[in-house]
Each structure stands twice: as C-alpha cells, then as structure tokens.
C-alpha cells in the first residue's frame, strides 16, 4: 500500500515544463483545474485530451512514470463511475436490471466525472509534482502568498514545513515497508484473514512509524538549528525564482491551451 504513494516523486529530466518558473506553473495549474471542471461535452473532452497530450509530450515524462502516479487513483475513478451510473436516473434507458438502470445520460455523466478526476491527476503530475521539485513548489507558494505576511500569516514557515514534509515522504515510505516486513516475520498479517485481523496488523506498523517520525522531527530540528536556520528573514536563495522570456512564452502557450478548453468545453 505504501509504495504506491507517488506524491512528491519528482522525475528529473530537461524539458520546457521542468524549466518553467514554478509560479507560472502554479497559477496555470489553478486555471487548468477550473478548466477541467468546466468541460461538459465530448468535443470538450477531446480538446482537453489533446492539450494534455501536448503538455505530456513537452514534459518528456516516460509513460510508465506517468502511469505509476495515475495507477493508485484508478480504483477511486472506477468507484466514482459506478456511483454516478447508479445515482443518475434521468435520460433514455439503455439497460435495466431490477433496481439498476443505466441511461445514456448517466453513462455520459459518469464517464465525464471519471475522466475529470483522471485528468486532474495527470495535470497535477505534469504541471507540478513530476516536473517541479518540492522546494520549488514551496518557493512559489511563498512568493505568491508573500503579501499575506503583512497580515501576519506565517507564509515562510508554512512553505518550509511543506517542503520538509515532501522531502520525508520517500524516507517514511521506505521505513514503513521495512517495518512491515519485520512484523510479517513476527506473524503479523496484512493480506489475509479478517478485516479486524488486518487492521491489527497495520497497528504494528503505524505505531513504530509515528514514534520514529517524532524522533526524526526532533533530530531534524536540531540539525536545522545547527545549520543556523533562523526563519525566512535575511535568507538568500541558491536558485532564486526568476522569470525569463522563455517562461513567458511557455506560460502563454499553456494559457492558450486552457483557453481552447474553455472555448470548446
């Protein structure tokens, strides 16, 4: 279960999308999320697919890497599809069996909902998680929300916490797997047996994981102290965010893609 977590799994390569300024990517990401949810026709879906495909090619992400971030969501997408089919009852009946009715409208809406979710994941991966290091995402957020500092919102602190959380996801995933193996060899059961038995199995992983996370947090705080961390005031940056003409062009193209989706819907 733990190894499927792909959040924070940055894929390193050299592409236009990778190089683009994270602030532009983040703002456009929001635009695309809105765009995904405005799509409601087949041509709209085709436009969305086309634009996403172009972005995917531009990002130079191998299909297998893309698939590994979509895979965990597939069961949820299927679940949404089924729920929608069962709950939407208007339209022309295509197939009927007792209480279950499948109509042309329910089929289309369920499909649309499922596709929206899948596209949401794909676009999040292309624009953010796979192409932007967590540190850059948090840098972008810090800059974008920077004005909120004036009203005493701890923007820097939140951004720092976020990037540390992302940094530790692979470490904790690995640790969870290790503890799981250790408990299996002591007789814990994660795959077979009753639900209660399996749940009890997971307790043997989650408690040690919590304990070690606290220990890690404590040690990390000391290490940050030792490296003279004292908040955002007066800090410089190795890779400061800088918008170059190429970024503006990328941003403009991405915006054009979103516009196409908005127009066709």
């Amino acid at each position, binding site marked *: 279960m733990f190894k499927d977590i792909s959040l924070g799994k940055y894929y390193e390569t050299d592409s236009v999308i990778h190089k683009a300024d994270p602030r532009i990517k983040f703002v456009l990401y929001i635009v695309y999320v809105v765009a995904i949810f405005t799509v409601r026709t087949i041509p709209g879906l085709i436009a969305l697919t086309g634009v996403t495909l172009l972005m995917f090619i531009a990002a130079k992400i191998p299909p297998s890497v893309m698939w590994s971030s979509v895979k965990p969501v597939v069961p949820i997408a299927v679940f949404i599809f089924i729920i929608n089919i069962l709950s939407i009852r208007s339209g022309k009946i295509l197939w009927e069996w007792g209480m279950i009715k499948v109509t042309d409208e329910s089929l289309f809406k369920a499909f649309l909902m499922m596709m929206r979710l899948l596209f949401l994941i794909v676009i999040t991966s292309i624009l953010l998680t796979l192409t932007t290091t967590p540190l850059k995402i948090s840098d972008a957020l810090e800059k974008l929300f920077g004005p909120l500092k004036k009203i005493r919102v701890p923007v820097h602190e939140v951004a720092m916490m976020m990037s540390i959380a992302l940094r530790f996801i692979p470490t904790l995933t690995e640790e969870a797997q290790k503890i799981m193996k250790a408990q299996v060899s*002591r007789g*814990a059961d994660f795959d077979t047996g009753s639900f209660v038995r399996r749940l009890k199995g997971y307790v043997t992983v989650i408690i040690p994981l919590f*304990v070690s996370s606290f220990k*890690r947090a404590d040690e990390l705080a000391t290490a940050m102290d030792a*490296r003279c961390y004292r908040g955002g005031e007066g800090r*410089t940056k190795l890779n400061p965010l800088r918008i170059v003409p190429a970024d503006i062009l990328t941003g403009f193209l991405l915006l054009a893609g979103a516009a196409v989706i908005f127009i066709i819907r």
Partner: protein
Amino acid sequence: MTAVKADNIYFSYRSYSEEDDRPESVSKALDGLSIEIGKGEYVAVLGPNGSGKSTLAKLIDVLGMPDEGKLAVLGYDSKDRDHFWDIRENCAYVFQNPDNQLIGTIVEEDVAFGPENLGVPLPELRERVDRALEYVGLKDLAKRQTATLSGGQKQKLAVAGALAMEPEILILDESTSMLDPQSREELLEIVGKINREKKTTVINITHDMNEAAGCDRAFVIENGKVTLSGRPYEIFADRKAASGSGLMCPVYVDLAFEIAALAGKESLDPDTIINEETCSDFLSDLLLNISASCEVPAPVSADDPARDVILSVRNLDHTYENSEEKVLDDFSLDIMRGEILAVVGRSGCGKTTLISHLNGILKPSSGDVVFFTPDKRELHAGNKKDLRELRKHVGLLFQYPEYQLFEETIYKDIGYGLKVLDIDEKDRDKLIRQAADAAGFPQEMLDRSPFEMSGGRKRRAAIAGVLVMKPDVLVLDEPASGLDPRGRIEMFSMLGQLKAAGTTVVLVSHNMDEAQRYADRICIIRDGKAAVTGRPGDIFENEGKARSLGLAMPSLFVFSEMIQKKTAAALPGILWEKHGRTPADEAAAMVRSIIRYRREHDV
C-alpha cells in the same frame, strides 16, 4: 590558540510534568567536565553510549548552554548572547543519521541550506556550493534527489553542507557509525583533508578505535567527565584504564599485548605502539628474543565441521522492480545446523535481499529455499502452505530492530508473535520470560514501555520478540550496528550462547574483522553469487590466497603477516602455523612457530 575550552561544566536534562510544568526528573549529562582543544587539532572523543559526549558537542555548537561552569568556543563565552551567532556560524555539526539531517530534496539545494541561512549572496553562494560538492566528490550528483543516494553519499553530502558554511570547527557526532567500511574510510579521508588543508578543528565523536588511532589526541568521557586524555596510543598503552572505560583497542594493540604477555612483559611503552609500523618492528624484535622456556598455550582444536544442512538456498535469482540488474544471480548456499554463519559483502550486494528470502518475506521468483525440520520434512519458501511453519522455524531480524517495537510494554511486545498464534496465556508467560533471558533482557524491566529505555536494551527486547517463537535458525542483519564497543562484545557473546543452546545463527555484516572473529564460516557475496564460502582460517590462510580470491584480509591477519614478514628475515624458511581466531590464539601460534623452528634448526 584554543578552539574550545571548557572549565568544570555541568549540564542536566530535565523533563517537566505535563500538568504543572514542575521539573519531574533530572538526568546528569555533564558532571564537572573540563577540556581544552587547540585550533586546527584533530581530536577523537571516546566513551560509552550515554556518557555525555554528544551533550558536550551540542554545547560547543550552542545548541544548549552549560548549567554551571564556563565554556569558551573560539574565544567567545558560550553564554554571551552577543556572540551566539559568532559561535554557531563557525561550528558545523554532522550528525549520526544521514536521513535526519538532510533538508533539501535536491543535493545542491541541501548544500545551500546552511549558507542561505547565513545570508550569503548569490555569485558567492553558488561558488561555495559547487566547491563543497567538488571537495567531497559529489559534483556529478548535484541535481540528484537526496532520497536516492546511498548512506555513504548522504553522509558525504552532510559534510559538504557543513563545508559550505566554511566553519572553523567541524563536529562529527558518530557520523560514520551507520556506514559500511568503505564509505567510512572515504568519509574519514575527506575529513582528514579538511583538517589538513583548511586547518579546520575537527572533533570526532566515535566508537571506532581505528578512527581514534589516526587522531592527534583523544579524550575519553565517562559519566560526564573526562577520565583519560592524551595521544591515542598513550591511552591504548594504559590497558587497564582503557578497558575499564569500555574501550576496545585497535586489533594491532591487542595482538601486541598478547605477544608481550607471552614474552613475560605486562606493560608496553606507548612509543612502541604508535602505529602498526613501529609496533611490528618492536614485536618482531620481541619474538626473535623470546625465551624458549616461555609458556605457550596448546593450539585450540577446531570443532568438528561434519554437520547436516538445516537451510538450503538453491539457485535463487532476484531482480528489483524497475531495474535490469540481478541482485541475486543463481545464488546457492547451504547453512549447517548449529553453526554461526556470517554473510559478508559490500553495501547493496544483495545481503538484505538474501535474508528476506530465508523466511519467505520475499517469494523466490526462481530457485528455492528449503528448510529441513528436525523430523526430516522439507519446508519450501516457494510453497505458500509452508510459509507459516517456515517463519516459525526461521526467525528474522532486520537492521535496527528496535524500531519495530510497538506495544505499551516490552512484555506484550515480546509476546506479540505468540498472541497471533493463539497460544494460551500460561505457556505464553513462560516462553516470554525464557526469551527475555536468552536475549539478555532483564526480567524486572519487562513491564516498562519500550519507548523509555536505551537503544541497546530495546534491541535485546526486539531480539527476544523473535526468540520467543523458538526458531531453529535466527537470521540477523547487522546485529551490532550503532552499539558501543562493550555493547558489541555483549551482542556477540549472546549469539555465542544461542549457538551453544543449539540455535543456528546467520548474521549479515560488512565488518570482516567481526566475521572472522565470531563466525564459524563466512560466506562472501559478490556479483549476486556466493563467491567464497568457508572457515575464516581457511579462506584467509595467507595473504596470497586471500588476494587470489579477491578478498581484503581481516586486520588481525594483515598485522600478524606484517610481523611475520619482518621476523622471517632472521629465520629463513620458517613455517608459520595457521592463523588463530583471537589475538591471543594468534600470538600463541606465532610463538609456537618460532619455538618449533628453533628446535628444528638448533638455534
């Protein structure tokens, strides 16, 4: 000029009650400690776990302040608020666990974290990062994710992060203890270079006496005080005090004392054991002049090797997901009933993958693992029906098993496996207590929470949690890692007792010295295969043979062959006895060889 000067400092850790903030318990960490470290010196700080070494290091980096006494760092009083940052900005600290000190997701971002905090402006910041990465040899990995680095690379990265701050003092707090020997050596080489070239003061807190031997000076801290100090060899020469402080001397010093004892000398002049070179000169002289009437113990007879196979690994292949390279490639190995087998190999050679197959945690994709029960039945790891029974017979402990404890009390945690098997409470109690005894865990502490005891105790509790199933084979991954010298010796003596009680022990290690000393047989993994398997005395019979097998000799044998070469110049044609397991055996073997030579040649 002094870098650090502590004058009678005291420090206690206090825990406060949650309800009313009143101090609940006080534990003394430093108890009137005084120390002086000169600028540019390279010092080792030794001593058992919990003696106050790390506390001292943290006070030096003003991560805390002494309760009493005066501590001056780089000439500034550590309590002087005006100079707080003057001290901290000039001290860099490398911690033990590589994972818990890396902040950046990308290598270069992590190196930059320190100087960014110092507010170093841009062109210089970039230069510092590049220089630091170049210095530790990670330049090519600058854009890699930190999570994908090996342990050794992560620790080099931590050193680069320290270096980028351009500190005057570099503190290593057991920074090499989680590394394999090769990474350790590489890291120490970098640190030595920093000390020589940049004149940085280095304070290395360590349990490794070979590391200490290379330092300018060493301090031993016990119960919050400095109890011994001086040049490392001066400390080793004072054998009584050193062993009283729980230190293990480098192997060459141990061998020197054993040979001297046979020659009738009880103490050694520190100047004779400065390093292996001076020491081997001295010992070869001593051996040549040894009196024919000295009393030498008779050779230790080796145990009977004829035993039957208990666990057989047959033609195992394994490839990781998303990888082409085979970790295990047609791997075969027979484990004999009642032996201690050490599986040795470099990091990433497939040791952990191998042991995960031994009790079926990893299912063999091709090949098989077969366990032979006492009543001669076969259990196959590839067979799902056999798995449950197999896991009862073959107990497995990964590295740092103390991290798997989860129950509120040690008692319950040890009994977890029995509870899963629905064994009734009365039998359970008996088994839990027996297991605690076997693992050397004190009975009276069974009701305590695992989260309030020392690392060594927790490890014993975790081992008891596997022993409670009464396994016939116990498999352990680096059982002694992170323990202090005394803890290591106790761990291996516990494994010896398990063997004596009839348990077969398989231990994975990257420490060839310990494998040579404590194992009956050694299996060396290379290129996914069991490259060499045999008794330590056979595979390391002499340097030529070891080299032809492509092995690095254990340090005891390396040093004794150094002495033998020097001695043989005066005794042409001498035949040396086979190497012994311990320094005492080895010393006796050498002396016996010389006495026999004299008898045969009438000299």
